[in-house]
Every structure is written in structure tokens, then in C-alpha cells.
């Protein structure tokens, strides 16, 4: 790509995928995410959990043959080396898109037997769908020898496909359903015919499933294992190549139960658990789901036995992996790599070192004193209620305000908190500077209060702010870059058309872009399932956080842009727990357990808003010290005040019917 044309925004499309633009995908995809998720490419079942933007879909797309082909055609190395788990073929099913979740919508058997029958047919359907997908995968790979080779398909396999197909069709696991099939194409047709039979039934194109289907129900997972085994034993697939079977949108099963009269969700899930429980070394499952949608005790179909974590499966939680901790700083590297790749793809001349490119383009974020200066501007900062202090303190404060408004705000808080006894203005004692930890914990809060007093909006700009606001979510990061770049393109009189790396250092341009991104993500909350309710809660809590931090002039609680709940209390309140967990699984709240500061107390859960909302609510993105300790009753009160259905007064059984209290505000005046 050259820079002759008008400059584009390198982050214009949030998603660059292999389906629509394989060439771009290969340039833009960052292998960094692979480094920390190596278990995904090794044998063994994995439950892959992550919010949108955690990289979950990017990783799952690596399992598809189309992606491998894209790399081969672009003559780029596949991000995972052959010896490091790069040899695999994949097949999969999306529970919504395939129509699998329709099972249960139309009874197959009469009465109470239907639940079991539906589960059995569900398993059969998954088998056929996945094997069909597996055969298609082979065909796609074989169309591109380089890709096939990398995947571990043995050269010359294409000559044995018909043989393989007829052998597979004869296997017992099909119960004779595929008898007479003698070619690869024929096998695919037979598999599709059965799938179509199911679809016709559920679309009411046919009145019954047909005896063909009812007589030959396969056992969940078995045909898949058999196919995998046969591929290897017949020499089509290398022994050291894995077969990864994706089952996506597992969380949709949970929703089935939630709002239908059906009790089938657990049965369908148990079918999938059974497949994992087979612990077949020939096949490894990859279950894509949302956080908290994976049950604590996954029961297996036909038994009371439960899957055991680590024995039967492993959970890979991408949000956890990317979240910064003392041991890990993965996200910044990941973000930098994505940034660099996008710029290069857009035609800019970019070096190969990953470190520091975000900073090179966006510059560093202002230091606290710089921010303070921005908020004060040309006006002087005058400490409020200065006359309450004794005269020498007043003088001290005024002098401090002139030198550093930030120091002054901190000084006021210190004095309010600790009193004036140990302050000796003559000796020049400045504990609000000397006591580094005290100061560090309160700087963000001080800046919030200073901005408020000066009636200024908080400023966000620079690489550090952008990374902090991303909250380890690559999609948020890309959208921040997109908005900033948009603002930059608009601001320039004649944007440079050279391919040199631009320098977007105008703080206000960045600030504008960041606020726009924050508004976008705020608005996006309601576009997700149950989003209206969630947004009401977020708005309520966001405002609370701001209020708390703003009025706490003693700065006793700099950490109150978060709340903390007792673990046991939370466990006991299913409805509330599920609400909060759902919010976390949609990336709106961030949840962390921590050990309580109380001696001998339970584990507590601390909850924050995702940092991207910080500009919108005018609160700091960073967290210090302790969040606000609250009880279940407090949370319920907030939810009721926010007007969240299910938590309104009168929603609980046994109370008086006062359900339309607050109803007016629920559907009240909309935007515009």
C-alpha cells in the first residue's frame, strides 16, 4: 500500500478478519496473543473464556483452515510453529448459526421423554455437523498444499480421500446410516442430507424427523473420535498433528433456560460435557463461551458424573491473561504490536522494534503537575474555604498554590485529614510531598478535585493514558486509536501524505478522540443482551464513584472508584451475583477477588467499571488502596434506584405490588 491517495485511518475498521480480507488479516494479526495461550494449541480440552476484545475470536480464527490458507498464500509463516503446536486441523460448530439451539423448540418425542430425546438428537446433530465440517476442512487445506503441509496433512492425502470416506462410512459408530457411501463427495452429501433433515424438521418444512434419523442416532463425540483416529491410521494426518473441535457460543445454552419454559439447556450442555469427558487423545475440544456461563459442576449426559477441571478440561481466561499483574505485562506488548502492524499496513514506514511506537506517535501522557497546570490554565488556583485556616497556614497554602496547584490540593487534604499540629510552616515541612506513598495514592483524586473546582473536564492523552483506558482489551485499544486518528485527520489543514510516522502530539486532538471513544463504548453497553438494565446500573455507579471522590476533601478514600462485596454474602444472593457476573462477562465491570483488610475475614470481590468509561464519568482509571466496602443491601438499593427490572421494590415475592414505581423513568424520554 502506498501513500499516494488521501491518508486513511489505519484503524478504520475495528475488525480485520480472514473471511473478508485475508491479506490484510495476515498483516494485521498479532501473534503476541499466542504467546500466553500456548495451551490452546496443545492436546487437551480447553474452555476458552473471554469478553469481546479479549482476543478470543482472533485466537479461535487461528483454528480455522481458511486462516492457515491465508498465511500460506501470503507466504507468511503461520503464527504457531509446527513443533510448537502448529500442526493441527480444526472443525467446528456454532450453536446459534448451525441451528443447534433450535432443539427443544419443537418436540421430537411425547411428554417428559422429550428432554432426553432432544438431548440425544442434539448430540447426533453435533456429530454430523462437526464431521461434515472436518471433511470440508480437509478439502480446503488440500487446495493449498503449503497450508495442508503445515497443518500436518500427509502429502498425497488427496489421492486417498475416497478410500478414507468409504471406510469411515462403514464404521459402527454410524449404526449403518451411511452404508453404501463410496466417495468423499458422496459422504459429504450424506452427512448434509441428515443435517438438512433436522433443519427441515425444525423449520416445519417436514412433519417428522424421519425414520432414517430416528433409527440411527449416533453417540455424542464418538463419530468425531473415530474420524480422527481413521485419519491418522490411514496415513492422511500425521500422528503428531492435533484435531481441534470448536464449539462456539456455548453460553447460548444457558440463555435457553433463562427465558423459555424449556428445561433442556442442562441436557444439551451435558451432551457437550460428555464429549469432553471422553478424554480421547485423538480429539481436543475448544469450547468458546462467556465468563460465568461455564458451570461449576458440568454434568455429563446419561450420568451423574461431573467433569473435573484439569483432568477433563482446562479453562483459559483471556481477560485474566491480558490483565496486568506483577508477573505479566503482556497487554502493552500486544497493543504495541497491533499498532505497529496497522500502521505498516496503512503504508507508513515503521521500524521493526515493537517497543515504544505508541509513545512515538502519541507522545507521553502529561505528568500530574502538567495536568494540574492544564486545569488551572491562566487562572490562579485559590484554595476554597481558605479563610477557615489560621493565617500562617493560609499563607502557606497560597504560596504552595502559586508554585504547584497540585501540591496545594494535596496539602489541603492532608491538613483536613491530619490537622495542623505537626505542620511547621517556618520549618518548611511539606508532608504532602515527603510522604511519598500517601501522595502517590491520592494524586489521581487530587487532580479530579482540582479539575472540578476549576470547572474543567479531565484531560486524557498520551500513550500511557491510551493503554490504561484500554483495560487490556485490544478492541478498546484499536477504537481509541481510531477515534484519535479521526480527530487528527480532521484537525490537520492538509494532512501529510508522506509515509513518515506521524506525530499526533496535540493534546486536544487526542483528548477529543478519547472522549469520543469513551462515549462510543458507553453507548455500546445497551446494544448487548440485557444492556439497558446494565447501562442503568453503570450510569448509577459511575455517578456515585465521581461523587464519592469529589466530595471526599480529606482524601481518606482515594480508592472509592470501586466497590467491594463479601464473597459469602454474594454467593448467597444468586440474582445479584448473576447480574454482576453478567456485567463482567460483557466487559462492563471488572471483577477481582482480594483478601479483605479485616482480620480473619472472608474473601471479598472488588468491582470496577471498565476503564474506558472513565472519561465519560470523569473518574480516574487507576485504582489505589481499598475500594468502598458495601453490603448486598447497598447494591440492591442502587439497582432499585437505577430502575433495573427485577430489583425494583415489589419485584421480590411477598412484597406489595408496587411494580410501576419508577416505571415512568424506565421508558421515559429517550435521546434526541
Amino acid at each position, binding site marked *: 500500500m502506498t501513500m499516494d491517495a488521501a491518508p486513511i485511518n489505519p484503524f478504520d475498521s475495528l475488525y480485520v478478519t480472514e473471511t*473478508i480480507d485475508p491479506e490484510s488479516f495476515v498483516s494485521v494479526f498479532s501473534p503476541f496473543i499466542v504467546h500466553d495461550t500456548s495451551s490452546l494449541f496443545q492436546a487437551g480440552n480447553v474452555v476458552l473464556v473471554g469478553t469481546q476484545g479479549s482476543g478470543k475470536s482472533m485466537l479461535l480464527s487461528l483454528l480455522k483452515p481458511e486462516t492457515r490458507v491465508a498465511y500460506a498464500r501470503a507466504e507468511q509463516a503461520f503464527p504457531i510453529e509446527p513443533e510448537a503446536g502448529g500442526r493441527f486441523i480444526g472443525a467446528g460448530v456454532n450453536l446459534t448459526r448451525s441451528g443447534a439451539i*433450535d432443539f427443544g423448540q419443537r418436540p421430537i418425542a411425547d411428554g417428559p421423554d422429550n428432554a432426553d430425546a432432544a438431548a440425544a438428537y442434539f448430540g447426533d446433530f453435533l456429530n454430523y455437523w462437526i464431521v461434515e465440517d472436518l471433511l470440508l476442512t480437509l478439502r480446503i487445506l488440500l487446495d493449498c498444499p503449503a497450508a495442508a503441509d503445515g497443518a500436518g496433512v500427509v502429502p498425497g492425502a488427496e489421492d486417498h480421500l475416497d478410500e478414507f470416506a468409504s471406510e469411515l462410512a462403514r464404521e459402527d459408530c454410524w449404526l449403518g446410516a451411511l452404508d453404501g457411501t463410496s466417495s468423499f463427495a458422496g459422504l459429504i452429501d450424506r452427512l448434509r442430507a441428515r443435517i438438512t433433515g433436522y*433443519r427441515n424438521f425444525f423449520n416445519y418444512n417436514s412433519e417428522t424427523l424421519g425414520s432414517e434419523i430416528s433409527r440411527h442416532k449416533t453417540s455424542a463425540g464418538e463419530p468425531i473420535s473415530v474420524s480422527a483416529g481413521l485419519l491418522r491410521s490411514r496415513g492422511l494426518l500425521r500422528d503428531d498433528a492435533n484435531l481441534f473441535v470448536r464449539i462456539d457460543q456455548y453460553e447460548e445454552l444457558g440463555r435457553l433456560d433463562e427465558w423459555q419454559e424449556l428445561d433442556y439447556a442442562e441436557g444439551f450442555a451435558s451432551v457437550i460435557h460428555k464429549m469432553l469427558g471422553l478424554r480421547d487423545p485423538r480429539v481436543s475440544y475448544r469450547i468458546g463461551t462467556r465468563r460465568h456461563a461455564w458451570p461449576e459442576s458440568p454434568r455429563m449426559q446419561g450420568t451423574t458424573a461431573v467433569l473435573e477441571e484439569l483432568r477433563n478440561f482446562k479453562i483459559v481466561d483471556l481477560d485474566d491473561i491480558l490483565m496486568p499483574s506483577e508477573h505479566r505485562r503482556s497487554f502493552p506488548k500486544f497493543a504495541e504490536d497491533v499498532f505497529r502492524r496497522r500502521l505498516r499496513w496503512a503504508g507508513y514506514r515503521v521500524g521493526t522494534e515493537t517497543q515504544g511506537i505508541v509513545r512515538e506517535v502519541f507522545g507521553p501522557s502529561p505528568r500530574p503537575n502538567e495536568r494540574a497546570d492544564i486545569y488551572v490554565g491562566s487562572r490562579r488556583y485559590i484554595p476554597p474555604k481558605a479563610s477557615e485556616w489560621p493565617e500562617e497556614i493560609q499563607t502557606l497554602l497560597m504560596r504552595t498554590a502559586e508554585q504547584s496547584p497540585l501540591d496545594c490540593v494535596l496539602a489541603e487534604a492532608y491538613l483536613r485529614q491530619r490537622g495542623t499540629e505537626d505542620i511547621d510552616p517556618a520549618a518548611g515541612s511539606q508532608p504532602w510531598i515527603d510522604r511519598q506513598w500517601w501522595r502517590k495514592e491520592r494524586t489521581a483524586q487530587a487532580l479530579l478535585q482540582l479539575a472540578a473546582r476549576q470547572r474543567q473536564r479531565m484531560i486524557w492523552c498520551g500513550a500511557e493514558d491510551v493503554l490504561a483506558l484500554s483495560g487490556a482489551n485490544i478492541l478498546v485499544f484499536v*477504537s481509541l486509536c481510531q477515534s484519535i486518528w479521526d480527530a487528527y485527520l480532521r484537525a490537520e489543514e492538509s494532512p501529510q501524505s508522506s509515509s513518515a510516522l506521524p506525530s499526533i502530539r496535540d493534546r486536544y486532538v487526542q483528548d477529543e478522540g478519547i472522549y469520543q471513544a469513551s462515549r462510543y463504548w458507553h453507548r455500546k453497553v445497551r446494544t448487548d443482551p440485557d444492556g439497558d438494565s446494565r447501562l442503568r446500573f453503570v450510569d448509577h455507579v459511575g455517578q456515585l464513584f465521581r461523587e464519592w471522590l469529589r466530595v471526599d476533601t480529606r482524601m481518606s478514600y482515594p480508592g472509592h472508584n470501586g466497590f467491594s462485596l463479601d464473597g459469602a454474602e454474594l454467593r448467597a444472593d444468586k440474582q445479584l451475583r448473576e447480574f454482576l457476573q453478567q456485567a463482567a462477562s460483557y466487559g462492563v465491570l471488572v471483577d477481582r477477588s482480594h483478601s479483605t483488610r479485616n482480620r480473619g475475614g472472608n474473601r471479598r470481590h472488588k468491582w470496577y467499571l471498565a476503564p474506558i468509561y472513565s472519561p465519560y464519568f470523569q473518574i480516574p482509571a487507576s485504582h489505589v488502596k481499598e475500594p468502598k466496602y458495601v453490603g448486598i443491601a447497598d447494591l440492591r438499593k442502587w439497582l432499585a434506584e437505577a430502575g433495573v427490572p427485577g430489583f425494583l421494590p415489589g419485584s421480590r415475592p411477598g412484597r406489595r*405490588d408496587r411494580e410501576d414505581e419508577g416505571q415512568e423513568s424506565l421508558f421515559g424520554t429517550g435521546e434526541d
Partner: protein
Amino acid sequence: MAPRDWHVVSCLGTEERCFAAMTQLATRGQLDRATLVNIVEPEGHPGASEIKRLKEDRERELTVPPLSGLPIELSAHALLEPYHKIVEATRAAAKGSAHLWLDITALPKRFFFPMLKILLRTEGLEDLVVTYSMAESYADGDLHQDIQSPEFLPLFAPDFREQRGGAEGLIASIGFESSGVIQILDQSDYAPVTVLFSYPAPPPFFGRNWDFVRYAAKSIAVGQLDFQGVSVIDVPSVFDVLATKMAGAGKSYICAPYGPKPVSLAMCLYAAGPGADRAAVMYTQPKYYNPSYSSGVLSDEAGSVIYAYPVVLNGVNRYD
């Protein structure tokens, strides 16, 4: 149209316009019988008592002329019930009826889509007319709350789809409340994405539509977004636009009906047609509908403004 004895299939909703068409027919003495679907809201609906009150108002209308004394049957359904119940109830109601009149004014898409598909297959069907009544005014607030995740509408999932070799196409009609399209876009890749603007679209629709597109565009691959204007009320014309876009395109399509109901009707008629590769229809079902979304019935000097779309006439489906 020559007078007939119509069997009306409609909905006991909360809005004042839900019986407008039925009342018109009854006034002309052409209402033979009616089957009304009464959709029970999910538990915890924030407006439950208001819904109850409004439905009682509607039920009172059934007890006075011109509707009093006519054979009107009510059929209760949960908003989110397994869809076989919708199908069975529709089949039972339509059995033996030759002249069917489906009023979609108050029917949620989850219901009217499968109902229409089933009604079209009624044995001995001679005529089928679909009607839609517009409201006098619309509340400024939200139409609904808490949409769910995207799913195919009942009976409008693909029969079988090989989802390989390129992305599917998406055709989304937009309107007052289109945010569900964002979820659909986020879940999968679509190329191309055609947004249907329903015209005329004066403010507030003007701003809402464009703001929505601006947001949705972020989730759409560069160069894959295009716009098409369609009429708010001209169902045959919208049908033609859809057919031109999709038939023979060599790729599979998903329709997302977020626009005005007549446009959704056109999508339904297109997708309900024969052929395994007809479009599939995806939607995000809301949990709670605003009971006071609209008020009154739009009328001019001639009376209520009701749009009637003959779909089957004298045994011929005009949308085949």
C-alpha cells in the same frame, strides 16, 4: 376488493391501534370470526400493572359494537415460549379458513414471522391479506428494553448453510430502534452490508438513522457498507429491492428486520418463499416492550389509515 367473510388473526396488545383493522371489517359486516393472540409478558416486566390496565381497555372494546357478539377467540402465549406452540396455535386457528386476514400491528416479529409462513401454507387458502395500522403519535422514549442475543426468527433459520468461501451478506432495515444490529455485526463477518433506510425519514428519524449507521460502520469492514432507500409502506417495492439484491447473487444472505413493520413484512415474504437458499432472518428479541409506545390511530378525513397488503388472492400467492 369484493366482499368476503374474513377470519382475522390478530393480537390483543396494549396499543389503541391494535383493533383498528378488525373494527373496520366488522363495521362493513365482513368479519366472520377472529383469533386473537394474547401475549403474556415475561415476569418482572417493569410496566406490568400498566400493561394489565391497557389490555383491559382493549378487552372492553371487544364487548361493544361493532365487535361485540362476534366469535372472537383468545389464545394465550408467553412472549418467549417454544415456537412449536406458535405454530400449532396458528395451524389450529387457520384450519378450514379460506379467507385469512393477518393484522401485524401489535404482533411481535417472533410471532408474525412464523405465523405468516404457516398461514401461507393453509390448505384451501384462497385469500390472505396482511394489514398494518399506523399510530397517531409515538412516544419519545424507548420502544423496548433489554434486547437478547441474536437468533434466527422461528422458522427462518437457514435450512442448511455451508458457511465457507466468503462472508455472508447482511441486509438490515433500520428504524427507531436498531441497536441489535450492532450485536449481529459483532458476531460475524458480513460482506456486503446493505442498510435499508425507510423513507421518508424526517427528524427524529433523520438523526437517529445516521447516528446509528455511523456507530455500526465501525464494525463493518471498510468498503463493504452500502445504502438503499426503500419506502416505509410500499411492501411490493421493498420485496423487489430484496429480490434484486439477493436472488442469483451467488451468496447467502441474512436479513435483519429493524425497520418499520411493512419493511419487515417484505423481508418475511421474501424469506418465507420456497427454495433452500432463501434468506435467513436474524433478530434480537427484546425482553420488555414499552406498553405506551404509541397512542391513537392515524387517520385522515376518510377514517383510520390502515395499510392492507394482499398477499394471496384467489389462490395465487403474488409474492412467489
